[in-house]
């Protein structure tokens, strides 16, 4: 469990503000459990052995939508339990994300909209070589001022 960040308010959001970097490792078990929770029992998500034997892949894969979920969590963790809500997230799966690899999650606030009380962010997941495997953008909305 992590200590929860204080609730983010629109007034405290600053362009340039950084989310992370957070180091994570997605375990094979996590990737498999996610796939099973989604009803995807395809060999590539089950084990290295299944992925190699059944699909000729070098190792098992992390489901793409799981990486979207992890980047969405980077944003919602940063928001905390205030009025800020994730309104949109878009990701591009550039490369295979193999479980067991050391990954880092990154994010930046890139834009704020005073009228809409919203903010845009860049988010991405990179490997140890700094190669961005999954990249995306997100919008958070804070609702009307109190």
């Amino acid at each position: 469990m992590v200590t929860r960040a204080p609730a983010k308010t629109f007034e405290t959001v600053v362009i340039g503000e950084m989310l992370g970097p957070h180091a994570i490792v997605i375990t094979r078990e996590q990737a498999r459990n996610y796939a099973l929770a989604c009803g995807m029992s395809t060999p590539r998500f089950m084990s290295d052995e299944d992925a190699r034997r059944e699909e000729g892949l070098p190792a098992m894969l992390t489901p793409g939508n799981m990486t979207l979920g992890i980047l969405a969590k980077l944003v919602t963790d940063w928001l905390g339990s205030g009025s800020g809500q994730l309104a949109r997230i878009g990701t591009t799966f550039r490369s295979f994300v193999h479980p067991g690899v050391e990954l880092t999650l990154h994010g930046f606030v890139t834009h704020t909209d005073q009228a809409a009380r919203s903010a845009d962010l860049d988010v991405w997941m990179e490997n140890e070589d700094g190669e961005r495997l999954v990249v995306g953008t997100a919008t958070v909305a804070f609702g009307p001022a109190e």
Partner: protein
Amino acid sequence: MSSDEYDSFESGRFEPQEGRQAESGSEQAPERFDPSLLGKLFDLTEPVTVTAQMIRDYCAAIGEDNPAYNEPSPDDQLLTAPPSFAVLLKRSEKIYRCMPRYDEAFAAGQDLEYLAPIREGDRITLASSMRETYEKTGRSGKMSFVVLRSTLTNQRGETVAHIDHRFVYRS
């Protein structure tokens, strides 16, 4: 996000229909599309009922430990799903059976617009259309893209999310 970046993809997770053979010899998937599919709205799915167990399994799988998604609301004792939960409700859609060579497609990305919370007990209906097709070249060669849009509606008729699923075929 660059087209230059695609090395490899999570493969699409579509089960081939019984009796259907993977087609071969096609160079460009979009050429094989029936143009009338573009923009066509596919049949709505049967509603999926969101259970507490589904939300818990999802939270456990992505390591979501935020009390907002793990503890029932004090008001009605029901769980609220994390926003990204929406992307996993697309399974039963018939649209995928209309995609040519859909068993060869790879997931290239997703864009989720989240409009209202999905909560325990909700019955979510999906409606999908084929939005766009285009081509580009990347690290792994020529790629043909198909974008499907799903709209998720709850039992009160509220739109809870739009999801664009981008799929790529490599030739």
